[in-house]
């Protein structure tokens, strides 16, 4: 217990936990929209595609500067989200298929480039491999600023376009009939998604990033009856997972932060799926049990 209190007053821990908590909030909010649009895997495609972006940015500039590397990820993510939208819109290729193709092509390219880049004298120092599994312990105050500024940008846009995102997520055809441009809304949505993925890459890594979008929102869906409620709760669950994950991985050195954060998020999702009132598994079993008992009681009375 004393260890934990010490940890909380540790400056490095505070920085890292602030960063992961913030990105948990952002991915929780955005995840709600992608899960409800049944595009939860889009995040997976984009985050995997970010890897070659990071490596190319490194190869071109030779820098270990996080801003530059994440900018590479941003460009790659935007390109792949654009390609997926284009291919599903204008060809008969299904969303899932397009996603799988782009994901493997870009990720494969990223891995190949990475092993090439490792020969570069600066490569180890730049710590490129931290983008695969994520290592939040490398967070500096500056990295937290990146997360905070980009995250604020995403949250402000979500707030401003709340009504549009809501109707577009719920009923895109109707949104179109109201005169909202589908292309424009798709672009806004993709931009928000890409930005919120990019800020999580350093802490969570490309492989598991999409879980940060899915798990908190799936958990939040179990407890909420409105989109606003679901978004708020998902943000809270995301933040909880970020902070808890950081706590555990700091307490046991060498545990990569990303996987631990994702495990925390999954535990929250698991508990919600089982125990949420109304939609939870346990509650629905209980309802069936009661309904059956009541029915039997009535039959006995009638008999």
């Amino acid at each position, binding site marked *: 217990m004393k260890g934990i209190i010490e940890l909380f007053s540790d400056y490095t821990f505070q920085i890292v936990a602030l960063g992961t908590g913030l990105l948990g909030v952002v991915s929780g909010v955005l995840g709600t929209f992608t899960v*409800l649009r*049944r595009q939860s895997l889009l995040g997976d495609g984009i985050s995997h595609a970010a890897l070659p972006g990071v490596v190319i940015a490194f190869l071109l500039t030779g820098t270990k500067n996080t801003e530059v590397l994440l900018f590479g990820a941003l460009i790659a993510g935007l390109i792949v989200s654009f390609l997926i939208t284009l291919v599903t819109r204008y060809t008969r290729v299904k969303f899932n298929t397009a996603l799988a193709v782009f994901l493997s092509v870009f990720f494969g390219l990223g891995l190949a480039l990475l092993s090439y880049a490792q020969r570069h004298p600066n490569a180890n120092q730049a710590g490129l491999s931290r983008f695969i599994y994520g290592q939040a312990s490398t967070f500096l105050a500056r990295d937290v600023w990146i997360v905070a500024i980009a995250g604020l940008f995403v949250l402000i846009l979500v707030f*401003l*376009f*709340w*009504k*549009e995102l*809501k*109707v577009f*997520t*719920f*009923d*895109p*055809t*109707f949104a*179109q*009939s*109201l*005169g909202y441009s589908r292309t424009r809304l798709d672009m806004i949505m993709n931009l928000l998604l890409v930005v919120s993925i990019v800020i999580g890459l350093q802490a969570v890594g490309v492989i598991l990033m999409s879980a940060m979008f899915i798990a908190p929102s799936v958990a939040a*869906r179990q407890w*909420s*009856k*409105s*989109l606003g*409620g*679901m978004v708020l709760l998902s943000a809270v669950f995301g933040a909880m997972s970020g902070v808890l994950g950081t706590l555990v991985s700091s307490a046991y050195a060498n545990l990569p932060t990303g996987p631990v954060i994702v495990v925390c998020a999954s535990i929250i999702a698991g508990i919600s799926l089982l125990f949420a009132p109304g939609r939870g598994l346990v509650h629905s079993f209980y309802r069936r049990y009661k309904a059956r008992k009541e029915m039997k009681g009535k039959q006995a009375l009638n008999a």
Partner: protein
Amino acid sequence: MNHNAKKSEVAIEVFDLTVAYDIKPVLWDVDILFRRAKSTAIVGPNGAGKSTLIKAMLGMIRPLTGAVHFYSKSGLLQRNQIAYVPQSASIDWDFPITVLDVVLMGRYGHLGWIKRPGKHDRELATDALEKVGMQDYKTRQISELSGGQQQRVFLARAFAQEATVYLMDEPFKGVDASTEAAIVDLLKEIISSGNTIVLVHHDLNTVADYFDELCLINKRIIAHGPIEKVFNEENINRTYGRNSLAKAGLA
């Protein structure tokens, strides 16, 4: 077809519209004019292109050729003037949203980007729910509605739009008889205050009671005009194929 109608009497004009999903067009050369303050039934067999016509009028499908004018203006109408009820809502019924919230979305066209619905919008949405007899379900989750109730919510959303043009694709599908009667009264009210309705309908028994005009369609426009002139056995047979009226038990 009467192209001599005065401009002020015309709500929607469709010129030379040809639409294809693949290579072969599913709608050929549609020239049609919908009068202001009239209700028109679009009637034709399955696959005739009725939904396609409505979607093309809304600009949701890009036609191969042709144009649609609302109130004599080319290009898309200000969208808060059109209410659209799709044939089947392609939505996720498990979405966390209440009935009232769905109907409120009908007001979004009046709000434009960024602005939120206010008290007035809430009142209109509540009124619309009363009109379709769903006021008791305001706070229900949409996942907890029956099929017909879902359809009524979507109708309420259209009524909340306070549009001047209503494009409705089989709005009575799954709705019980007494609700249908109530909605027909409502439609007549909408017409009498000067608005226009174009409605895809399948029930030949009620066409004459419900609508002012009839448009028979089967890939092309077969006939169009006032019910009393157009609704006859010959036209129906030309639309549905020989003796279809006898088959439908109407002859």
